[in-house]
């Protein structure tokens, strides 16, 4: 069999790392770190997701093609964000009227 049986120890270590990550996420959120709060929370979430993908989902032990498809899912997500953010960031730079033209302008205090 080409099957790679992952030892139970690995699963338990990943589980502990995920729990630690959750604890850290809550701990960091209870402290005001200014602009760093969100990047840290997202950073921890990305590390946790990577652990799940690599070990629980066996991508670390999968054929290259599976690894490529798994990575492409996240790459396309990055493209979705990048291209749509370009649109919203650039609004009004050519024609200032389009900036005030946002249909969803709601008062936010």
């Amino acid at each position: 069999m080409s099957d790679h049986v992952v030892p139970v120890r690995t699963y338990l270590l990943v589980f502990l790392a995920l729990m630690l990550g959750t604890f850290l996420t809550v701990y960091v959120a209870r402290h005001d770190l200014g602009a760093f709060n969100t990047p840290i929370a997202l950073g921890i979430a990305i590390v946790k997701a990577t652990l799940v993908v690599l070990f629980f989902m066996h991508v670390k032990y999968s054929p290259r093609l599976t690894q490529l498809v798994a990575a492409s899912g996240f790459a396309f997500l990055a493209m979705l964000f990048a291209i749509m953010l370009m649109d919203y960031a650039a609004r009004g730079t050519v024609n200032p009227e389009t900036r005030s033209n946002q249909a969803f302008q709601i008062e936010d205090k």
Partner: protein
Amino acid sequence: MSEHAAALQAGHADHEHPRMAHHFESLAVQKDAASLGMWLFLAQEIMFFGGLFFAYALYRNLYHGAFVAGSQLLDWKLGAFNTAVLIGSSLTMAMAVHAAALGKRKQIVGYLLGTILLGTLFLGVKVVEYREKFHHNLVPGESFGLPYEGLDPHHAIPESQRAPLQMYFSLYFAMTGLHALHMIVGIPILAGLCWFAWHGEYSARFHTPVEMVGLYWHFVDIVWIFLFPLLYLIA
């Protein structure tokens, strides 16, 4: 014997297996094809949730104040508890796949039942959270943000805040609702796996369905790993 000849011979043995499709060379090749297909489906799922995550990023940027206020109306302790429950269910799912790879019938069933139990517990907590939001008029719609019985007047939502706050709660319900829907779909599938596992369908040689459902379940866990800090912990 060359490596290729050995692989071919293993393939011939595999062709006796009732779950082996004739167009594959061996069960191992068949499993790799299934994984690839499952990952293509998950790539599509990433985009499915991705649209909502982008909407979240955009509106959080536009109405930061309302998102902070909305986040504080959620109970982060319930969210953290549910995160731990879901991570626990991912562990039992991984252990079910492990038991399947070793061909341990009763262990597969046990770990799958554990996964179902934890998944149901997660949904139960979600019910408690959703019900509170209904009672507190925080579900998007006509009565959104209106005072309710027993509300401290100091905490009443000013009328100017209702629209942006409703945006936060629309995204909250859309994102957690779609996530919960995935779990509601997953739990009966896990129950089906339990049934087949109990009847000895899965062995060390063939347990692809357990692995594929595992991939789905772990993906749902990953979505929650992002939802928890983004929805419950905005400072």
